[in-house]
């Protein structure tokens, strides 16, 4: 046992030295180079540029690349999380006898949890809805949102979440509907192109010179002109709903093992 430990430590530490040498010597990155790579420069200069062919109508490069330039990849990534949740539900089906009764938390914890949770939810929604303008997006907003249910579960138990309407069945259906919404937004330009006789592609954002069936990026309202960047705002909001419902569901699944015995 001790020999194996020493061997593993030796191998991993030599791996560290080797990786450092490879990274520094191969020119993957170098602190003295001040310029970005060519691909990064292409994204940075062309995505917010009105005259460019890969214009995404958004000052946020990360969200634009994520949902416009590699939208199908992001869609399948969302389905991977969906499959993990379905697998967890399947494995943890039925009754469990692992449980231990949980102690009631103090009044300070309960009151603070009730005060803080709405703030977290508001911050998460703001990060997700402004995802095409400021740093953030659907995934990031969803990941912030899940902290709210986590605090509620730890302080008040998941029966409190059930009172708010967040049951397993409703969360799973919300998650499925949001994923369906992402897919529908993705094929909208194909359908519009087929109906109107234009060319349209899956997960296409703005109209291109050779494919006219795209989304607009500005909306004129009585009080001003709003920028919503084509598909980006819809995909961000749907992804926010999908990720928050999915992670809340997974927390409820993992907590149900403990909670069941308490009743």
């Amino acid at each position, binding site marked *: 046992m001790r020999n194996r430990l020493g061997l593993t430590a030796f191998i991993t530490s030599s791996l560290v030295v080797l990786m450092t040498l490879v990274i520094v010597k191969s020119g993957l990155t170098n602190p003295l180079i001040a310029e*970005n*790579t060519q691909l990064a420069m292409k994204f940075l200069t062309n995505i917010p540029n009105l005259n460019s062919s890969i214009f995404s109508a958004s000052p946020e490069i990360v969200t634009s690349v994520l949902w416009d330039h590699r939208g199908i990849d992001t869609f399948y990534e969302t389905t991977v999380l969906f499959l993990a949740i379905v*697998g*967890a539900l399947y494995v*943890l089906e039925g009754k469990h006898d692992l449980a231990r009764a949980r102690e009631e938390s103090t009044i300070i914890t309960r009151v603070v949890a009730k005060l803080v949770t709405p703030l977290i939810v508001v911050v998460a929604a703001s990060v997700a809805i402004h995802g095409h303008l400021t740093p953030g997006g659907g*995934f990031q907003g969803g990941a912030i949102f899940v902290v709210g249910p986590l605090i509620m579960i730890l302080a008040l138990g998941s029966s409190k979440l059930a009172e708010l309407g967040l049951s397993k069945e409703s969360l799973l259906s919300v998650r499925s509907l949001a994923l369906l919404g992402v897919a529908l937004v993705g094929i909208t330009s194909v359908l519009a192109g087929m109906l109107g006789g234009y060319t349209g592609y899956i997960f296409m954002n703005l109209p291109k010179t050779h494919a006219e069936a795209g989304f607009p990026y500005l909306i004129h309202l009585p009080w001003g002109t709003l*920028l919503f960047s084509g598909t980006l705002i819809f995909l961000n909001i749907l992804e926010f709903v999908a990720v928050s419902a999915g992670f809340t569901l997974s927390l409820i699944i993992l907590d149900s093992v403990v909670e069941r015995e308490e009743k």
Partner: protein
Amino acid sequence: MSIEEFLWYYILFMVLGTAAVGLCGMVCRPHMIKKLIMLTIYSDAIEMLAVLLGYRILATQPPVFFGGVLEGFTFPTEAELRDFASSAVDPIPQVLIVTAIVIGLAVMLFLATISIKAAELFGTQNLSKLEVGELDE
């Protein structure tokens, strides 16, 4: 060697060292929950490494054009864009890491449920205490 360069090498080595600790723990520790914790440390260190590869010494801002507003947003001119691109960090590692974090959470969720099931079926999560018998017909 300037102080910036020294700090950069120091951070690179530390991140790789954290990854090595995670890898070592994943292999050596027999307990499932400890393996999960080490897996988290390992994946976080690798994500940190990827962010670090996008850093440039003159970069002073995130890859988001300054001043994004919902109402009346004006798109930047060519000169503003050139200025922006020369002072922003690389966006591509950040894009990849958003993907990697969500996939990592999915893997974590599935492994956690499997370890709960193992504790229920075998009474232990310690892999060295598990007795692997022959399967009955």
